[in-house]
């Protein structure tokens, strides 16, 4: 049996006595698209924050590629090969699209810190080429000299994805990638993510929108009140009465 890329083992997290996660176990297989769904307040975001170094679990472990992520800071986790997309797209609004993509490419090549104060950025041909390639791939090349602040929300998401892809991550975390988007933008984003599926980057998607989940995921975990209540392939989850209860009936027993 191969080892899962991301292993979450018996993770607990409380906020001032309030149990946000209790005994969460989760395996994300390499190459899979793993969706984590659940009603509001189920602990999805808390779990994601435990993956990226924003929060440390009280007990339990998060292993990525066999190494623990607990206690690492966000930039260390990114350097280990985990890239993330935020719920509201987070990009460098004052910088050009090209700079937005060059920065993560530089971070991949130079590591978390390298004092490069003399050579021109323009002379870093490898990094520029990579950025250019990803911008072209995502249909942003024509506007690479525009500042990111002028983009529509859907295009900001597209740019954010470009920033992640240029790093060639082993794991891509998507936090509600279509939240707050118009129907058309949502569909375009799904299409884009499906196309990215061909690259076989392992993805974890946190999502509300069932359409998004069922059109992308190869495996689904359902979170309710801080625990995983069901896990399986999309067809199995669709028919699971516990899942329907969690979504429609509110409390689980």
């Amino acid at each position: 049996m191969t080892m899962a890329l991301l292993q979450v083992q018996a993770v607990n997290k409380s906020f001032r006595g309030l149990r946000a996660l209790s005994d969460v176990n989760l395996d994300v297989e390499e190459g899979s698209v793993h969706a984590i769904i659940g009603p509001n307040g189920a602990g999805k975001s808390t779990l994601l924050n435990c993956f990226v170094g924003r929060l440390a679990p009280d007990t339990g472990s998060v292993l990525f590629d066999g190494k623990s992520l607990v206690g690492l800071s966000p930039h260390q986790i990114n350097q280990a090969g985990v890239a993330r997309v935020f719920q509201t797209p987070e990009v460098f609004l004052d910088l050009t699209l090209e700079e937005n993509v060059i920065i993560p490419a530089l971070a991949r090549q130079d590591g978390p810190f390298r004092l490069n104060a003399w050579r021109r950025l323009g002379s870093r041909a490898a990094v520029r080429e990579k950025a250019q390639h990803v911008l072209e791939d995502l249909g942003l090349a024509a506007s690479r000299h525009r500042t990111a602040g002028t983009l529509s929300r859907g295009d900001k998401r597209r740019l954010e994805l470009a920033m992640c892809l240029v790093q060639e991550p082993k794991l891509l975390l998507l936090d509600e990638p279509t939240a707050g988007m118009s129907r058309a933008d949502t569909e375009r984003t799904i299409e884009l993510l499906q196309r990215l599926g061909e690259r076989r980057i392992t993805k974890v998607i946190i999502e509300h929108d069932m359409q998004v989940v069922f059109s992308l995921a190869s495996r689904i975990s359902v979170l309710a009140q801080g625990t995983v209540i069901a896990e399986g392939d999309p067809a199995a989850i669709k028919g699971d009465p516990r899942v329907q209860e969690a979504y429609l009936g509110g409390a689980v027993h």
Partner: protein
Amino acid sequence: MSARFEATGGARRDHLLLAGFALVVLTMPLWMRPFGAAYPDLLQRFAIYGIFAIGFNILFGLTGYLSFGHAAFLGVGSYAAVWAFKLVTVNVLPAIAFAIVVSGLFALAIGYMSLRRSGIYFSILTLAFAQMCYNLAYSVLTPITNGETSLQMARTDPRILDTWLFGPSPLIPSTHLFGMEMKGYPGFYFCAVLLIVAFYVAMRISRSPLGTMLRAIKSNQNRLNYTGVNSRPYALAAFVISGVYAGLAGALLACTDPLAGAERMQWTASGEVVLMAILGGVGTLLGPFVGAVIIKYLENIFSAFNEQTLHSVFGFLPDGVENVVVAVAGLFVGEGWHLTLGMMFMLLVIFLPGGVMEGARRLGGLWRTGVAAPRAGVRRLAPSDSPSVGGGE
């Protein structure tokens, strides 16, 4: 914008800008004459505070971290330089090198602690550290700073290197660069050359990967951290570089006038460099120098105007009107030059938040649309300006 990336074309444009800057700075004694500012003491000040402001802008303009304590490094640079004069030699080069090292170490320590916080808390921390330095200079540290009397050179100073080379000096020697005294125009040209070097270094930093990372800190530090970049050492590098610029400026103040007083470190001096950067244009290469020149000009020229000057300026008016005009204008000159500065600052921040450089850019834009009026409409419809960009795959 694209200039940042075009490796060859961008470099050529930068060299032109540098050449233009050097020309403007070195010819200041000529073109400042009609403004009544062509005397070496003031020109030295323009160059020195230009260095201070350019360095401050590397921190504030690029990373957005607003330090309210940069005058501390200016003061430290001055003290270090004067001590080098007293103990080693009155040649300015070792003094400048020593000041750079000492202010750099100071900036490293203060920056390391202050950068644990951002926003207003960072500003308050830097202000607190600077005020601490200022008060220490007046109290506990008087053996080093000579307190209120200011640190000065004395006839009895050891000046080890000078004594060893040339024997003891009967007088207090003046500071020099291999025999060239740092007074008057030679002093100005020395400062001007260092200003040009400082400008060039700032330009290189701004175009480098470091500069891009610093801009990314200003734009979205959270995103940067999740992009695999450890933003703290980058911000610290910017802090130390700008501290070194301030130390260099402080050393030059001491080179042209070998005296170091604690008032140089007071918070008003820290505030002044913030004003210079904002007045000229935060984040631009030329802006901080322009701001420094404007403020030092107002401070030295406007404050020297008195009622007599005003009467001679407004002499063409009928007597009654003249008296009223002089009375009103009198509020803005002499002691009241701060009022002029304050009004200017307010107007600028309200109407031109990008400072003088934004004004220049807007004027340039107006001129260009005036020339290319028929093409303006076409340009507005160009595809790169359409709101959505992802549709055409």
